[in-house]
């Protein structure tokens, strides 16, 4: 019983973080039809900035988080404005490879500027201690982080569904020409989507890094969110919540019953299965062209 509960709750709490990562990937895909393979770099960068500054500067966490999120948001906007914008109208993989190039730049930059193998982040608002749920014990901090991630992702889903900003971004992604004829400044929509997605990546990186350690593992978390994005449906913003939680549950059960080292490989097997048998994902649009 406790093993089952730890699989479910552990999986859901990881899935909550996946959802937050996935929604960033989906926003970028909705707006500019690109996979951002540098998403993990943005997560790691934001977490490293906070972790590094907490060591020396003595500034309160809130200010450090704002600084770091501002930096990654601006970087995302600059990446789109000065690099990826020129891939518009070219085959899709052009922009994808360009994000890989940016990931290499970020990796090298991190190697030079943050020499220590890992850092840690302390968020003062989190409680310490542990809670026992049906015989399985969890750290309350990681449960609080997961709750925060779920609430934030759900709030974003609602924003995209019901506000005019959400409608603008969705329209810009669907048909840029018609959207611009309708009075939407399409360039700002693109740049804004990238900045928003990168800020979300930063939030995910900082919160995940606060309950785990800040190292290269954060980048792998982003790569594991791609299968989640496909499972939920790449173009579906509510789908990122479904896909993230679903993939988290898969990971939780694999970790509890098979072994932690199998999580990555099973996640990618699910990705291959989804690609071949359910290419539009659970909640995606069926007309998404993939064949």
């Amino acid at each position: 019983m406790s093993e089952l509960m730890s699989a479910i709750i552990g999986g859901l709490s990881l899935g909550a973080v996946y959802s937050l990562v996935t929604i960033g990937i989906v926003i970028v895909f909705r707006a500019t039809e690109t996979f951002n393979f540098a998403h993990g770099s943005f997560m790691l960068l934001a977490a490293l900035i906070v972790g590094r500054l907490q060591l020396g500067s003595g500034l309160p966490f809130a200010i450090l988080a704002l600084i770091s999120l501002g930096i990654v948001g601006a970087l995302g906007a600059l990446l789109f404005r000065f690099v990826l914008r020129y891939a518009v109208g070219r085959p899709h993989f052009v922009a994808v490879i360009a994000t890989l190039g940016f990931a290499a730049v970020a990796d090298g930059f991190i190697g030079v500027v943050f020499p220590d193998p890992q850092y840690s982040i302390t968020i003062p608002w989190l409680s310490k201690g542990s809670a026992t749920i049906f015989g399985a014990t969890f750290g309350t901090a990681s449960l609080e982080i997961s709750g925060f991630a779920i609430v934030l992702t759900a709030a974003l889903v609602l924003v995209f569904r019901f506000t005019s900003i959400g409608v603008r971004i969705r329209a810009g992604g669907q048909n840029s020409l018609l959207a611009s004829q309708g009075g939407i400044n399409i360039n700002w929509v693109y740049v804004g989507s990238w900045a928003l997605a990168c800020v979300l990546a930063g939030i995910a990186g900082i919160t995940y890094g606060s309950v785990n350690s800040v190292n290269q593992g954060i980048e792998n978390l982003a790569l594991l969110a791609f299968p989640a994005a496909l499972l939920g449906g790449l173009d579906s913003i509510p789908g990122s919540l479904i896909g993230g939680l679903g993939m988290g549950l898969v990971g939780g059960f694999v970790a509890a019953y098979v072994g932690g080292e199998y999580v990555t490989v099973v996640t990618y097997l699910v990705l291959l299965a989804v690609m071949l048998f359910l290419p539009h994902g659970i909640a995606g649009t069926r007309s998404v062209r993939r064949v």
Partner: protein
Amino acid sequence: MTIQTPAAGSAVPVRGSGARGLGWRSLVQQKFLIIAVAVIAVAFFTATGSSYTVYIVDTILLAAIGALALDLLMGTGGQVSIGNAAFLAAGAYVTVWASRSGAPFPFDVIIGGLACAVAGLIVGLPALRIRGMYLALATLAAFYLADFVGQQYQTDTVGAAGFFLNPVFAGTISQQQASWAWLLLGVLAATIILVSWLRSGRSGRAWRMIRDHEVAASIMGIPVARYKLLAFMISSAIIGVQGGLLAHFTGSVSYDSFTLGLSISVIAMILIGGLDSLAGPLIGAVVVTMLPIFVPDVINAFVSSPAATQDASSYAEIIYGVLIMVFMIAAPKGLSRWRPRPAVPRADGAAAADTARAPARRA
């Protein structure tokens, strides 16, 4: 590269005519010219260079073999793969396995190559249904699968330290490095001849047609599935041979040396050199391999920092990351086919973005 806008359709004859229309540099001559340059370079460095110089030459030759193979798949065939480190790992591990099972030196590498051909066939299967960036994701999945299997095999047999192989050649270090240089040169020459032969005839036309317009290719009677799988098989087999040679050359194999970053560096090679060309991957292999070696010297020339050598690989990563973005976005033809830009006012992408923006400004 799939052509998606009608306006870009005019690019087809230009790109396809890479083999012809070069005047005196016809395909045959270009092929042997490149091999001759490589022979002269290897002869020069093995005769005059230190064992470290020859080691770098060996590394470049190895990288060039893999880059040519990836270029056949990505440049000519248009199949995007970021999983080439997976085939490299698979080749290395099967070679280790065959070697431990008693196969002598050249045969264990050949077994590694054949195993990778089969693996390439399997990884190629999703390419029949998906393409472009989705295929890139599928090859990423292949990368994690290969990484996992290799890791399991390694921890079950020898543990974290990895496998060690006995040196292939006898003699001093510098004699060994020189023997490797000639062996790798031979393999590279064979790869060049194979790749240029595959590209020049019917198969080359078929792959370029599939790359430029898959639907049109199938309408013209090109067996798309067969050619896609063939591209994956041949490219993976060559990369597998490269992996086997790499295992013997370095003398040790461990799963943590086959990273995603390694895949990206090979992509950097073919983009910097220029897709779908013979000289391109070789130029790219030289540039990307030399970067971590030259970067500390360049940095020391300006600021004299002892950390530059230590962080050399990081600086190199920054530089080739930037080069990937520059060559992907601004100079998609790479160094080997770089020409001064004709007087066309704006690139397609910028123009498209402008037309999208202009009405929005008015509104």
